[in-house]
């Protein structure tokens, strides 16, 4: 065993826990939201900055709230308000659309637990 061998072992022992934590940690929150308006214009925003966003749709403006790393619809000109009732999007791959208004949001980043959601 040379000194270099020992250095490799020590380095590996230090790095291994980091790799474990990174790869096996539970589902982590999304970091980005991709917002598409009724004319298919896409805008990507970060979720680490609380804000309120107005998105132009077919019926009027959908209003989105970003808070604490999550995003949701808080106002919509549609009659059903399904988009508002659906609540927060927070995990990678979560998608929500206001179909009547032609506005949809998908969040990404972080580590997802599922490849897709069945409902």
């Amino acid at each position: 065993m040379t000194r270099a061998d020992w250095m490799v072992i020590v380095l590996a022992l230090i790095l291994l826990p980091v790799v474990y934590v990174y790869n096996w940690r539970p589902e982590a929150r999304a970091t980005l939201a991709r917002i598409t308006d009724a004319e298919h214009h896409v805008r990507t925003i970060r979720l680490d900055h609380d804000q309120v966003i107005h998105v132009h749709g077919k019926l009027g403006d959908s209003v989105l709230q970003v808070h604490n790393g999550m995003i949701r619809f808080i106002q919509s000109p549609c009659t059903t308000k399904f988009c508002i009732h659906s609540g927060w999007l927070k995990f990678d791959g979560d998608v929500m659309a206001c179909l009547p208004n032609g506005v949809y949001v998908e969040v990404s980043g972080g580590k997802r637990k599922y490849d897709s959601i069945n409902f």
Partner: protein
Amino acid sequence: MRLSYKHVLVGLLVLTITACHSHSKVAETKDTILAFGTLVEVTLLDVPKQDSQAILKRINDEITYMHYAFHAWKPGPIGRTNQLLAAAGEFTANPSVVPLLIKAQRLARESHDLFNPAIGKLITLWGFHDDFPPEGPPPDDAAIQALVKQHPSMSDLTIKGIRISNTNPAVKLDLGAIAKGYAVDFVIDTLKAEGIKNALINAGGDLKVLGQHGDRPWHIGIRDPRGDGVIASTDVQDGEAMFTSGDYENYYEYKGKRYHQIIDPRTGYPADKTRSITVIARDGALADAAATALFVAGPSQWLAIAKSMGIDQAMLIDAHGVIYMTPQMHKRIKLEKPVKDVRVVDLP
């Protein structure tokens, strides 16, 4: 045994492999389309960008056409078919809808008409043939019973080639409970023919997969019909479709009562014994139609209908939150939340 540095190195190697195992990175390309009254998302894995753009464009065009062709209340091939069904006599149907009608007719028969695409007039009466869900009180009971008594059924149609005749003027087609399944089958077949090995199409929560996600199967969560998040999960294998019908998807409330779009053809009212049903099958159209039929059948009859339709993997959550699973479904489902009452029930 004395521990040498070689043992230590081998141990580290094993630890490194397990540490990295869960994190195989694959490049995803996605396209999202507004169709079938929902969001359709197509995901391709490890396809070069220039190839994926052309393929996704083609898929987008196909889905957009199917949305137009199968639409229940807007002008198009099914809209025209409905106009001709209302008149007496035989007519020539648009060839693009005939294969779907033939399949729907067979599945309706196998479901004992609990999947019944011929009850379009009832769906219209309930107000669900509109871009906006209905408001106010439910329809008049006499009007509902008048339609139910006419027993519109797919067996009223005779389909010979592209010629169709109808013996029951109460028939009006609404293929909403099979169109998405038919579409996801078509998309997966098209992707396969294009040489794509790994892909997923999710049409408003109903999905079918090709291949797998990197070095593991596609891992899918099933939404909790009454709470936030996911109630269960499973790995979905190459070529499998997974469809869920729930009372939370398209509904309205009047005086505190929920009225959803899954109408029981026997009563004319929304089926109220089930919260959600999840079906896994290799045929997307079958999974789609079976999800509706088993939802309508409810906890007392769903196993008999599943058997009749050739379904052996299904999970039903009843109106009280009790979860029923077939043995084959139970083998693969992982519950993600504590559930008080889970029952594994054999097919008859």
